[in-house]
């Protein structure tokens, strides 16, 4: 089946689309010239930027008024599809809102969802999506067998965002129908956990700590080193689960996917869960006591040693150099 049109679930704030949205638009326009962005919120403020990256039309629900995006946006999408505009494929980012909306929509349309993908193609087998499994060692390509719209989610940073120099997209209202009991959850308040320094998934250098640090008080070493390298501190799931640092620090399958120039893993053994989130880094430095740790399998420079010795030495030297 050929791809005739693609929708991209688009996110953004203050007139600025997220990087993930721009990545998906860039990929979508390489497959078809008929690319539409679908916004759960205000579309007018994003129309110029979404158009620049390849969207010719923007469906927008307008303010959701505290409704969760899952039921609301999926219902709005279903209404447009029922109205006759049915895309071949709908792209979603693999994140909180993307997952909720695609899941609800899959039930409404009775279509399967392929998640965690890093690529999509229009091939002799039909529309095929590629997902890495076993920590990225194996790539599985899966074809959609039924009819569209095909629902697919992509991991962050699967594609590089590039401007197409397009004109502002035309905004079309896509109102949210009554979602009944399914839409009864309401957002009471929004809390932003501010962190200083560069964002984890945008930083040029990421320093992450794991269980090998021994105790939560030692995480300061990771933060100090990250600061000296003008980078962001990250964490393995083990120490997030243990409550040493907030969830927003987590690098991995269920956390953030990072692809910095330099990734330093301190006291992290390299569970599949973690590797999925950092294997794409350009340069990887690992410090771990256990020389059999899987993290050394992906490290460009591996130090078999004690993080409690190596990190303070490194920090002291960098401090002395100013």
């Amino acid at each position, binding site marked *: 089946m050929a791809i005739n049109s693609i929708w991209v679930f688009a996110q953004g704030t203050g007139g600025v689309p997220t990087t993930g949205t721009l990545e998906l638009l860039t990929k979508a326009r390489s497959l078809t010239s008929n690319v539409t962005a679908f916004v759960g919120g205000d579309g007018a403020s994003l129309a110029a930027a979404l158009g620049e990256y390849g969207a010719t039309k923007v469906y927008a629900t307008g303010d959701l008024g505290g409704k969760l995006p899952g039921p609301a946006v999926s219902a709005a999408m279903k209404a447009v599809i029922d109205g006759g505009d049915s895309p071949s494929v709908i792209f979603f980012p693999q994140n909180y809102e993307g997952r909720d909306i695609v899941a609800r929509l899959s039930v409404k349309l009775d279509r399967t969802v392929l998640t965690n993908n890093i690529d999509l193609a229009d091939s002799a087998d039909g529309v095929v999506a590629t997902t890495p499994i076993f920590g990225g060692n194996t790539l599985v390509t899966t074809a959609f067998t039924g009819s569209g719209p095909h629902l697919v989610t992509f991991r962050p940073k699967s594609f590089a965002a590039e401007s197409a120099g397009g004109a502002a997209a035309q905004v079309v209202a896509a109102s949210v129908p009554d979602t009944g009991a399914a839409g009864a959850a309401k957002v009471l308040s929004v809390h932003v956990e501010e962190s200083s320094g560069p964002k984890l998934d945008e930083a040029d250098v990421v320093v992450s700590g794991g269980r090998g640090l021994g105790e939560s008080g030692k995480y300061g070493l990771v933060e100090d080193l990250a600061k000296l390298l003008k980078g962001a501190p990250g964490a393995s799931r083990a120490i997030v689960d243990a409550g040493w640092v907030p969830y*927003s620090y987590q690098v991995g399958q269920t956390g953030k996917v990072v692809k910095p120039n330099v990734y330093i893993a301190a006291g992290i053994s390299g569970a599949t869960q973690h590797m999925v989130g950092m294997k794409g880094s350009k340069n990887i430095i690992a410090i771990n006591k256990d020389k059999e740790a899987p993290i050394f399998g992906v490290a460009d420079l591996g130090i078999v040693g004690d993080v409690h010795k190596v990190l303070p030495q490194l920090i002291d030297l960098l401090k002395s150099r100013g």
Partner: protein
Amino acid sequence: MNIVVCVKQIPDPATPGALDGSTNALKREGKLILDESDGYGVEMALQLAAANGGGDVSIVSMAPNGEVSGMRTALAMGAAKGVLVSDPSLAGSDALTTAKVLAAAIKKMGSADLIIAATESSDGYTGTVPEQLAEVMGLPSVTFAKKVEITGSTLKADRQTESGYDEVECPLPAVISVTAGVVEPRYPSFKGIMAAKSKPIDTVTAGDLGVTATGWAGAGQKVVQVAQAEARKAGEIVEDDGNAFNKIVAYLENLKVI
């Protein structure tokens, strides 16, 4: 307060995963264990039930081969009973079919005030089943819930977001998915393990539940290729002799990071 926890029994993550050569599905032979992520849901269910006047915590699971050892772990923690949907026709089911099967099983179990699941399984990690389940059942949902409280028939939860968290209010009945680390799952006591052996697990088929088009036939997807990813080139591994930090400094200088 009746709470149902959806649990998955998975191959032990400590052993390397493999795909079946003929179906390209994850191999699930041998003993399956309770997905570690599900321990948080079971614990939260036990705590919420206790804090809201008691009531039953039940578990529901779907597995192709009659496996119950992972469910026994949840029963040993304190859940009262379980329903296992086991049917050879379920092999190869996608997330949507899984959600339909679980929804039918939960309906058959009676009226649930709250349904709890993990955010995603540790083997397939599709991550859509809880929200699909909510949609199939026509219920509201709060996914990625970190902190959960119930007052009367209203649930309040902190829901994880990209930039922090949202405080969300939701009427019951509802579906929630809980992140790891929300509560500390209890270790089953010896008494609990012994008691779990005689707790009821009702085994039903997809047909019993009236769900059709399961397994490969219902999946709407087909694996067409499995390939090895390009491996990273092996790097330099050095034992720290007290000066290894200089290696790191030289490496960073070479990249002009410092």
